[in-house]
């Protein structure tokens, strides 16, 4: 009990000092950030799971990118109590000179299987519940599509050769959930209305909505797993929400962001701990001199730290709940009806993880405390190994955390490599600058040479300060640079594409019409590459979900059909990274090349066998080559490419992707092309830009929030770094003043000291940012990394100015004390 009260006294005494407060502030901020993230995430997860129960429109849904064979459909009908078949495709609908890409749902007589449709006679009309979809010759359109096409109930729309009457505006479909976070404009027709229209839009899906009890559901599940490897099942019970993967990836990105914040917190804790540790060691040595056992002393220290953690936890948790409320409000557009919650499990899990990590930061300090001795009170003892231990331990625990959090091993590895490289560079620079600076200064009078001398004497502590500031600068610079470049690349998408109209999928039957239309309007076809839709279903004979266990963007993309292209030679905008490209006319068409990012994310290696479903049939390909994108020679590239002989052997449905340059006058006649071929997929780049803008707005919101967190943490790191070394500076200044130097001279000395520190740290941060850009940009974002030297140098100068100003402000404060006070320290 006495130990507890001593620990309480110590904690109370420490919180009165700025070092103690800084430690608590750092911990509180970290807990606040991480809890906000996990509580918001838990709210979204709960929303997704509640939503699944009421928004599926069926007990179970089987989705396939190819139509099932009639015997397979019969089997589904036999296994389920009731079945409704729907088909979805993306088409361009044109009406009264306007056009719009929209998702068309083809339904049968049974739709909706469960729940009701809600429609109205106009966009503002009252919603009416309907138990049947549109009849023959009718089309129902969504309110946004109605606005865009200026189409109202009573109008007649043309789809290819078919005339359809708009009979309702559709507001709600009971199976809306299946579309996940898609905000595509929607229309609905009866499948019989388009019989013979021979439409083949992009993003084609067949969805079989089933009514089935538990035993029927498990029988269907088993049969689908066995017979339809490419099909996807969504269930009410225990199924995953279509938005879940999207959210999980968002969470993983935020997870990596948390790792960056953790790195900064680690630096701040290490800095703030520096003085705190000296005090703790002194305390412990004194306890030992009273005959207290080392274990008791350590217990007191640990308990005292625990009290600080609890204080941080209380404040951090309260703030996190407030922030959760704010963020839930922001997310209401994406997740309608989402609500705030306590989420005890998420709270406990995150608290334990934070506790474990903060304890890991404390481990080296405890190890150092263990070496406290009464002898250290009699004779000064130093433990230089501890700096090394702290650095290695901190870096290893954070590397482990990063790999635990991140879904992208390559990205995490590269981030860590860039940071490691920057750390080494800063160490080397510190040693070189201080050693040569001191050599230069040896026979020179003046304050700058004296600064070099002093800094060389304190090279150990100076290195820690430089590494901390440099790492913090690197993370801050990299975050800001990435934000700026993602914005620029999104804005610049128009310029990097050859042309102003993207042909995202054209069928051979469209090509003649496109060419004719192009020549009649003075448009130019700039690029065209053939592809077929292929869905990766197995890797080395194992199902995709069994082979790949970590979620990633790549995985979620390859779960849907991707574009599989072919080329005799290595395309101009590609280069071979590994393996050998096939020879012209090579007979083995079962070879395939993939991008390195795909290999990393899916855990593939050359020699693996990939099974693709093409037009309903399975084909094996052996992974023998890896190719990467080469910027600057056209933007159309493919994740997977095969030899051209595949086309002859498999005879797949061929599509083309490419771009066109339209003169201004041609835009007005585009609707004629689309009215004739609604399944021709072309996207004007300005429309694409508008979509990017919407995404950009969300990305900007996220990154601004994150940058604010990083900036706040950077402020704490700088304060911790300066406070951690204030005692040394006070002592130094006190001694110098006692030797006759004026305050002005001491300020000058402080300025030189901070300037050299900031210059080395800033250079390290800039070099690390450059290295991170070089490693990450091309491989992860397919962006050509072109560092702007002026921006980098400018950043270093701004960093120097900020660090020097804050440092000098502190120095001025410490100099305001009298010589006697300073010496008393």
């Amino acid at each position: 009990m006495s130990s507890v009260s001593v620990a309480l006294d110590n904690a109370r005494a420490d919180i009165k000092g700025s070092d103690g407060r800084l430690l608590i502030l750092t911990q509180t901020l970290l807990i606040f950030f991480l809890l906000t993230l996990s509580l918001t995430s838990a709210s979204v997860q709960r929303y997704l799971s509640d939503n699944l129960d009421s928004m599926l429109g069926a007990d179970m849904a089987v989705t396939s990118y190819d139509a099932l064979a009639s015997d397979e459909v019969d089997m589904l009908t036999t296994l389920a109590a009731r079945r409704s078949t729907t088909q979805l495709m993306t088409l361009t609908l044109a009406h009264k000179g306007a056009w719009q890409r929209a998702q068309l749902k083809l339904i049968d007589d049974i739709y909706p299987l469960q729940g009701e449709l809600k429609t109205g006679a106009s966009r503002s009309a009252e919603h009416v519940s309907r138990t049947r979809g549109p009849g023959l010759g009718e089309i129902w359109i969504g309110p946004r599509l109605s606005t865009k096409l200026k189409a109202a109930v009573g109008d007649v729309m043309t789809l290819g050769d078919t005339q359809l009457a708009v009979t309702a505006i559709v507001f709600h479909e009971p199976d809306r959930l299946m579309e996940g976070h898609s905000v595509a404009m929607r229309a609905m027709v009866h499948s019989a209305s388009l019989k013979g229209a021979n439409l083949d839009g992009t993003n084609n899906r067949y969805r079989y909505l089933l009514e089935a009890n538990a035993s029927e559901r498990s029988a269907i599940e088993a049969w689908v797993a066995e017979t339809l490897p490419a099909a996807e099942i969504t269930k009410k019970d225990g199924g995953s929400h279509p938005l879940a993967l999207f959210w999980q990836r968002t969470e993983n990105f935020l997870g990596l962001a948390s790792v960056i914040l953790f790195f900064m917190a680690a630096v701040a804790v290490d800095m703030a701990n520096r003085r705190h540790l000296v005090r703790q060691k002194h305390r412990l040595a004194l306890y030992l001199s009273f005959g207290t056992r080392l274990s008791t002393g350590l217990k007191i220290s640990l308990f005292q730290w625990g009290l600080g953690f609890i204080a941080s936890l209380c404040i951090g948790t309260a703030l996190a709940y407030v922030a959760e409320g704010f963020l839930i409000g922001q997310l209401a557009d994406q997740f309608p009806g989402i609500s705030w919650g306590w989420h005890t499990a998420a709270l406990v899990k995150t608290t334990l993880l934070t506790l474990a990590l903060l304890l890991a930061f404390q481990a080296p300090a405890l190890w150092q405390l263990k070496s406290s001795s009464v002898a250290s009170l009699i004779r000064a003892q130093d433990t230089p190994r501890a700096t090394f231990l702290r650095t290695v331990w901190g870096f290893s625990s954070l590397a482990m955390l990063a790999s635990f959090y991140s879904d992208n091993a390559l990205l995490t590895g590269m981030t860590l490599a860039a940071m490691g490289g920057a750390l080494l560079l800063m160490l080397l620079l510190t040693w070189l600058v201080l050693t040569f600076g001191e050599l230069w200064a040896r026979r020179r009078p003046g304050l700058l040479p004296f600064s070099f001398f002093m800094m060389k004497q304190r090279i150990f502590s100076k290195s820690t300060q430089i590494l901390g500031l440099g790492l913090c600068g690197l993370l801050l610079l990299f975050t800001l640079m990435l934000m700026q470049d993602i914005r620029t690349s999104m804005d610049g998408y128009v310029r990097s594409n050859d042309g102003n109209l993207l042909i995202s999928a054209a069928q051979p039957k469209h090509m003649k019409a496109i060419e004719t239309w192009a020549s009649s309007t003075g448009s130019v076809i700039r690029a065209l590459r053939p592809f077929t839709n292929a869905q990766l279903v197995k890797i080395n004979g194992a199902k995709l979900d069994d082979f790949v266990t970590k979620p990633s963007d790549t995985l979620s993309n390859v779960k849907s059909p991707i574009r599989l292209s072919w080329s005799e030679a290595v395309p101009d905008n590609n280069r071979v990274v590994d393996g050998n490209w096939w020879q012209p006319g090579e007979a083995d068409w079962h070879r395939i090349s993939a991008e390195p990012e795909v290999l990393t994310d899916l855990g593939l290696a050359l020699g693996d066998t990939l099974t693709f479903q093409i037009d309903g049939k399975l084909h094996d390909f052996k992974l023998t080559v890896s190719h990467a994108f080469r910027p600057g020679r056209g933007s159309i590239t493919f994740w997977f490419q095969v030899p051209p002989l595949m086309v002859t052997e498999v005879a797949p449905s061929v599509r083309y992707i490419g771009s066109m340059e339209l003169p201004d006058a041609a835009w007005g006649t585009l609707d004629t092309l689309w009215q004739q071929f609604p399944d021709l997929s072309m996207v004007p780049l300005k429309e694409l830009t508008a979509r990017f803008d919407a995404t950009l707005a969300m990305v900007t919101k996220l990154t601004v929030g994150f940058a604010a967190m990083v900036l706040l943490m950077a402020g704490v790191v700088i304060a911790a770094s300066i406070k951690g070394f204030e005692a040394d500076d006070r002592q130094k200044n006190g001694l110098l003043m006692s030797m006759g130097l004026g305050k002005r001279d001491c300020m000058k000395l402080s300025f030189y000291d901070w300037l050299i520190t900031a210059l080395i740290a800033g250079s390290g941060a800039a070099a690390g940012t450059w290295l991170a850009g070089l490693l990450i940009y091309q491989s992860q974002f397919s962006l050509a990394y072109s560092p702007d030297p002026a921006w980098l140098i400018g950043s270093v100068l701004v960093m120097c100015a900020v660090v020097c100003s804050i440092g000098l402000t502190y120095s001025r404060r410490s100099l305001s004390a009298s010589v006697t006070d300073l010496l008393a320290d």
Partner: protein
Amino acid sequence: MQNQIELRKISHFFDTSDERINLFEDLSLTIKAGTTLAITGASGAGKSSLLTLAAGLETPKAGDIHIRVDGKTASATDMRAHSGFIFQHFHLMNELDALGNLALPLRLKGNKDAFDIARTWLERVGLSDRANHKPNQLSGGEQQRIAVARAFVTNPAFVFADEPTGNLDEITSGKVADLMFDFAAEGGGALVLVTHNRELANRADTSHHLAHGKLERTS
């Protein structure tokens, strides 16, 4: 003897990057309860090192140290629980007031009456009116009086003092020395002190001079 430390033929040295510095060889010394012992010597002679070895804070490079506490053989760690220290630089905790500093060893030993006992001791060293003053509000002499009381407050078997008057003027030194010797006599423990101060050393029951690695009894 109930409490005793016996140093038998101990040798000690330390290595710098360039050379080995031998402090002493085959040195023997016995510290008995109820006695006071002073060690004098020039700076760098190894007095503080000898004190840390005797207090069991370090192990000699050669030779043995035998410790008996309450009539039984004890380890250095066991002895630590029955020891007190007085330092040249006082080493009071800045964040605690005079009373808190004095009560600290008692509280760490789980004594519920720590503050009451500490108050009595504060009175004994004549600093009752300074109970709520922080170390930076006390003079050097006052700080060392508290440090002395702190070393004796748990009634230890051994008290080790390293230059206890090194930072004090002559008059204050005398007062602090009085306290040390009085407390040692009352408690019945052993007091080992390392000092440059001949006058202080002469007040001990036995006095030794350490020079060139040899320990010579001077009184």
